[in-house]
């Protein structure tokens, strides 16, 4: 089996919801990787959040033994990639481990923004591309149109496409056959010094970190001392093997193969996706290309709803972190919300997933602060600061220059939504746009926009103005000058630190006013008027007031009324206890949540 001619390494790439996981499931089933029952238990259940959302955040690898029409048995290594733009680096590392891809296109929806983005990625890696039109069973399927798009929009040879319905299980055999015939076998030299590309790692509570890798050259086996070329650390290999339904121990992993290495690596954070593994005593010349330090781009603070739960949250984060190396966090504290953590995420979706996991799997009740990007500030004394936490924002007068990260956003949509989308992009400070028509009636729009606008509420609004037909992809480009200000929220003159935001001056008033209005809805009346203000430094930019209690006493309080009344007041009192005191004002948790939630909820 070690003969590379009988190995194929491939990936499935697709726009979100185009049926990637369903196709993967079918391929597994068809190659007899397991029977239907195990399949349910073993594959589906471990990934419920991904399944529900139709997205994968971890790369999954599995070897499919397939006996082809030529009578030979091949090892088809499927490397399932994360399906979202937040994880494009992870995708690129997975693709670097493959020789070919199945480019999946929904027969009804046709080519979408991520179809293109993924295609470009695959092309960068010189991969063999097999276009597969999925969901041909749908009544709304328009196969002819998609074939047309494969030609005009993807620039691929239309003869190369395959058709299937992963849901119904049709066309699967042809796909497997095409993988064998069209995707080239891996190349590499088993005799050369070891170089293995890490494309993922998972945490196993018994074995520690399980490194997922593709062997480019050389051989690795248990007992070897390996070294991470960027990370620098060395480890002794305990076990290597292949991914079948579960890990299958093997004697060795050799050039061209995909598999795992267990080497006593304590935490997943010690393993960096994209790093090169080599042998300590016989290293390769240079690491494999393309390594990048993954940096978080979206930041938010997490606080437990009840401050007593801080320790639990700390434990939950530690556990969560074991399996998500791209998630970073450190201690943070807010006067208003108490002890918490400042966290960095690859994007908003990543943030969502982390939040959901913590709440669901670790049973935490959280308050999340307004997500922020990382700004670059140059002070008057020429020091350069990167600030993502409003509480670290320096005094405005010390700042010589503010800059914020920009992205290049690529959007595809039916032409009729173009006007609405352009309007939205301009409102979001989009610039340097370019427009092209990759196919009849279809527009591709490129804009450069501040990342902060996109993490705010862009995605939801984009979807709504394009009525769900628009697709969106982005990449970070650079930092650009921005007129930044810190907007503080004051409750009766007291600053509520957890509600401060760093925003572009043009958006400051709207953002301050919205925060005040939302607080007004949530903060109960008290004995005195409450002034809610948004301010930039000493300048008030928005305000509103909550009127005081005027009359609320019940008319009667005799023998039969007392218990009832006490219970009512006790309830209020309890509610009040759970509130945070800011100055002399009690603010319920719901008020924080209301301000912190994004615009469209």
């Amino acid at each position, binding site marked *: 089996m070690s003969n590379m001619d009988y190995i194929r390494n491939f990936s499935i790439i697709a726009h979100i919801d185009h049926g990637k996981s369903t196709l993967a499931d079918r391929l597994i089933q068809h190659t007899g990787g397991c029977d239907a029952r195990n399949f349910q238990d073993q594959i589906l259940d471990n990934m419920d959040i991904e399944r529900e959302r139709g997205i994968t955040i971890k790369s999954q690898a599995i070897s499919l033994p397939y006996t082809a029409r030529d009578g030979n048995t091949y090892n088809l290594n499927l490397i399932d990639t994360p399906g979202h733009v937040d994880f494009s680096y992870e995708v690129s590392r997975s693709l670097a481990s493959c020789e070919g891809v199945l480019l999946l296109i929904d027969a009804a929806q046709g080519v979408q923004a991520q179809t293109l983005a993924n295609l470009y990625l695959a092309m960068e890696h010189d991969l063999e591309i097999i276009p597969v039109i999925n969901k041909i069973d749908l009544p709304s399927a328009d196969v002819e149109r998609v074939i047309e798009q494969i030609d005009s929009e993807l620039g691929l040879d239309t003869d190369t496409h395959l058709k299937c319905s992963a849901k119904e299980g049709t066309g699967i055999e042809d796909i497997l056959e095409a993988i064998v015939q069209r995707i080239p076998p891996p190349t590499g030299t088993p005799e050369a010094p070891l170089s293995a590309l890490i494309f993922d790692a998972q945490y196993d509570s018994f074995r520690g970190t399980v490194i997922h890798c593709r062997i480019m050259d050389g051989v690795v086996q248990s007992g070897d001392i390996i070294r991470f070329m960027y990370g620098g650390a060395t480890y002794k290999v305990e076990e290597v093997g292949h991914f079948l339904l579960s890990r299958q121990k093997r004697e060795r992993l050799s050039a061209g193969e995909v598999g795992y290495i267990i080497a006593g690596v304590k935490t997943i954070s010690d393993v960096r996706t994209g790093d090169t593994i080599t042998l300590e005593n016989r290293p390769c010349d240079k690491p494999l290309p393309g390594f990048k330090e993954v940096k978080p781009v979206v930041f938010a603070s997490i606080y437990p709803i009840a401050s007593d739960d801080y320790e639990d949250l700390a434990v939950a984060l530690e556990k969560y972190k074991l399996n998500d190396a791209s998630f970073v966090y450190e201690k943070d504290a807010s006067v208003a919300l108490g002890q918490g953590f400042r966290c960095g995420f690859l994007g908003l979706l990543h943030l969502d997933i982390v939040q959901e996991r913590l709440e669901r799997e670790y049973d935490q009740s959280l308050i999340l602060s307004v997500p922020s990007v990382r700004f670059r500030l140059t002070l008057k004394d020429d020091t350069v600061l990167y600030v993502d936490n409003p509480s670290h924002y320096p005094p405005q007068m010390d700042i010589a220059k503010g800059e914020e990260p920009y992205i290049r956003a690529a959007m595809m949509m039916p032409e009729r939504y173009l006007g609405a989308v352009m309007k939205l992009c301009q409102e979001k400070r989009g610039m340097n746009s370019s427009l092209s028509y990759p196919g009849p009636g279809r527009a591709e729009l490129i804009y450069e926009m501040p990342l902060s606008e996109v993490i705010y509420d862009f995605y939801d609004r984009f979807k709504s103005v394009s009525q769900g037909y628009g697709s969106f992809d982005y990449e970070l480009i650079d930092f650009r000058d921005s007129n930044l200000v810190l907007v503080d929220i004051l409750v009766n003159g007291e600053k509520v630190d957890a509600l401060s935001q760093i925003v572009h001056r043009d958006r400051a008033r709207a953002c301050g006013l919205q925060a005040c209005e939302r607080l007004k809805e949530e903060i109960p009346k*008290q*004995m*005195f008027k409450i002034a809610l203000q948004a301010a930039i430094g000493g300048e008030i930019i928005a305000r509103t007031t909550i009127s005081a*209690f*005027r*009359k*609320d*006493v*019940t*008319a*009667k*309080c*005799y*023998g*039969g009324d*007392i*218990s009832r*009344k*006490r219970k009512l*007041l*006790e309830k*209020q*009192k309890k509610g*009040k206890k759970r509130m945070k005191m800011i100055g*002399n004002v009690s603010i319920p948790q719901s008020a924080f949540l209301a301000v912190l939630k994004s615009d469209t909820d």
Partner: protein
Amino acid sequence: MNLPGLYIHIPFCKTKCPYCHFYSTTDITSVDVVIASIVREMELYAGEFDTFDTIYIGGGTPSLLTVQQLDVILSGVHKHFLVPPDAEITIEVNPADGDLAWYRSLKDLGVNRLHLGVQSFSDQALTFLGRRHRADDAFAALDNTVRAGFDNFGLDLIYGIPGQDLQSWRKSLACAVSLSPPHLSAYQLAIEEDTPLCHSYRRGSFDIPDEDASLSFFLETSAYLERSGYHHYEVSNYAASTSRKSRHNQKYWDHTPYLGIGPGAHSFKEGKRWWNHRSIEGYLKDLALETTPVAGDETLSREELRLETLFMSLRTAAGIDLAAFRLKFGEDLPKERHAIIQSLVDRGFIVVNDERISPTTRGLAVADQLALIF
């Protein structure tokens, strides 16, 4: 410690008023059985309570009872308990009921205080409230009261009725004052859950005053009656002189023990509160078995007692008795809560001296919230 008070609940009404959440029924077939059981119930408590210096017969509509029926009840009281000669004995009277002879007989039975459910001097308002009587009946009832020789009596009035403005309310107040009752209760109409009024309110059939308007009514009532010589001694109660305050009701507000007899009545003694079945069947069934007809009870924790003390004291003009509070709860409020007290004084909600924290009129209007602050 003050002597306990006795409350007797007569759970019958001729018609049901749509705003009312008191326990009463219009089925009067069981009146005599209930009365007998009331006496029975008193007997069961004879060991636990011995003397009452206030007796309050309320309801429901006790004025539906005949002199003989009332006699049975009051004789029962005297048989099982001691009642000092200067005890306050009150009965609630619906202005639609009773003639002069009936009023005179009350006097003979030893009743010395009447509480008249006038509610309004406007027929329109009385119709909205679903009352059986008209304004004229109210005048007649007052006439009977005076002619029967009662010098201690009070009127109930309701404000905040849809269609009523400050001016028409002031007229009602003027009307009441002109009859010089020694005691007045002025209640803002409350929309109680599960009443017909509540349902029609939810359907949007009418509007009630908002918070600002409620406050105007409240302040105007207080100012008007104070000008007319009444002392605003509790959120909804006014007395022409200290001796004319309802001695019975004050027991509720300072945790003096009281025994409630009759269906749905509540009792309190030594930190324990219990309440009777809110149904005639349940009530009669228990008593037939010679057991007290108690539906539930609670023993108040110190924290609960403290909260009750606060919200009930702050309903009264006298306010919190600081020495008593210190004694009961070990807290020196002015010392421990200095900042908040000062800010409430500054905002005009309370006044403080060495002995008491007393709500101002504005403070009374938000007494419940004040209680939550301490």
